């Protein structure tokens, strides 16, 4: 899998796709939510590893596919994903703003 965080990344979150419909989901507390804005953010590499461990299912009942860490950055409006890819996953196709999470949010 491609690298989704740079080496010195400070803030990271965990994402995956949901088995039933492929929906992009984020880890928070003890479960998975659809909206990036509510995703749990880990500060520092140790916290990130701990977050990923908590998120990774140890049995098949989790129904969540391939959780991984990705880098986010802090701005005035909260956190945003660093890469274009994760921004697109968080919102939907940039060429169809009527589809995906961005449509549901608007």
């Amino acid at each position, binding site marked *: 899998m491609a690298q989704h965080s*740079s080496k010195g990344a400070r803030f990271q979150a965990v994402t995956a*796709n949901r*088995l*039933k*419909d*492929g*929906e*992009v989901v984020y880890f928070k507390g003890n479960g998975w939510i659809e909206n990036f804005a509510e995703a749990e953010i880990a500060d520092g590499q140790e916290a990130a590893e701990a977050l990923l461990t908590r998120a990774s299912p140890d049995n*098949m*009942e989790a*129904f969540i*596919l*391939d959780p991984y860490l990705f*880098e986010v950055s802090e701005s005035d409006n909260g956190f945003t994903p*660093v*890469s*274009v*890819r994760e921004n*697109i*996953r968080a919102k*939907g*196709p*940039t*060429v*169809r703003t009527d*589809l*995906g999470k961005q449509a549901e949010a608007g």
Partner: protein
Amino acid sequence: MYRYDEFDHKIVTDRVNQFRGQVNRRISGALSEDAFKPLRLMNGVYLQLHAYMLRVAIPYGTVSSKQMRMLAHIARKYDRGYGHFTTRQNIQYNWPALDRIPDLLEELASVEMHAIQTSGNCIRNVTADQYAGAIADEIEDPRIISEIIRQWSTFHPEFSYLPRKFKIAVTGHENDRAAIKLHDIGIVIVKNDKGETGYEVHVGGGQGRSPFIAKKLTDFVPAKKLLAYLEAVMRVYNMLGRRDNSYKARIKILVHETGETEMRRLVEEEFAKIDASQMLSLPEAELDRISAYFAPPNYENLPAQSDAFEAAKEGNPEFSHWVKTNLVPHKTPGYGIVNISLKPIGGIPGDATDAQMDVIADLAERYALDEIRVTHEQNLVLPHVKLDEAKEVYDILCAHDLATPNIGLISDSIACPGLDYCNLANARSIPLAQEISTHFADLDKQYDIGELKIKISGCINACGHHHVGHIGILGVDKKGTEFYQISLGGSADEKASLGDITGQAFTEDKVVDAVDTIVETYLNLRQPEERFLDTYRRVGMDPFKEQLYAD
């Protein structure tokens, strides 16, 4: 058109039922993802960025109106109201939910369609010239041998676990519209000195990380021996193709590393054995049976010139423009081949809504002897339209934003789904196609520029055929930011060539300017009647490079 026999029906229905069981067991937790993933891929189901994607096979790009209506219905019922036609003449749906895909496949099977062998390391959907059976000077309808190859390659037990995927394309015409030299096997239907029909076989073409033009391994294989020859190629590949590195596993690498001469010898040796066994000789009766499905439809006896058509052109310059770019002469007097552009200015290349698919199905039924074709350049074709009725067809296409007169022009670009959808992509492709098409929207300008094929891929896998674009654009990722490498001089036709990279990559906001600079350089340098590709081949890279990197 070919109709399923009882075996086709049974294998497709059985597969749907089998997959339904697998999906149910995965959702209940009885199957792990590791166990399930190869099974879903065998049924054309990928997991992309936002959702699952289902790729449906359209053998040799031919669909009936009934099938097109089903594709529209599926877009409406199981997806978000549209589908995406691909460079493999297939259609992809971007949003189906996994738990509904078995129902979707069951509905597809009711019109003799499926998603089998649209993924995985097997022989994929066979593609062919979109003008098959309609264009003049064709040696033989390429769909006949394509159908035979489809039947031979479907669930072929020996070739279900190849080193890598395998793609075959066929043309029956000297003008190659199927990009056969960029396929694992490309077949050209030819006639020998005695007037017998046979097949020229090209092997080892492909794009991706290491692009190659296929090598011609034989000038002539007689019809009844073609499957034996193909089996020989497949067997050599299956035995010797690399399995240690997926980037080096395609047959193009085997041909390259083995050498053309040795590869030919290995294939000939295997071919001699298979041929001697006569196991794969194609019986005349079977060849005739399949051919009958592709017999010419019942054309009317019409004069070559249509007065209604000429008058419509006279009275309507927009129609006349459309005729110039989108209507191609048919082999039958009084008929034309209609190209439906899926590249509206600023639109998404290859996308069609459910409503548009329904309209196209109606048009095919009413005006085009019930046939539709998908092109590898992501457009659609109504292959048999009466010139008398071309204006009616045009008016209906216009009303549904399907009459953009730009086939082969700069706004008719190929683009893969890119980072807007694809899990493998490094950069977006579609927005660039949209920006370029909007920038060059002026039709007079497009006509002045003439034939210019832009092909855009969002990663090195080259689904957008950037290596063979007259102007090719490749998206690359640099630390999470999109950059684009530009190449010039590629071509996918009978004089296939791979593009040369101009130099340093461009940021997204500089790509349209760069394309504009390339076009202006061409316009300044061209000689009368020279297309972009001709000028590039005459003057080479330097003048373009000078302008592009002037600062």
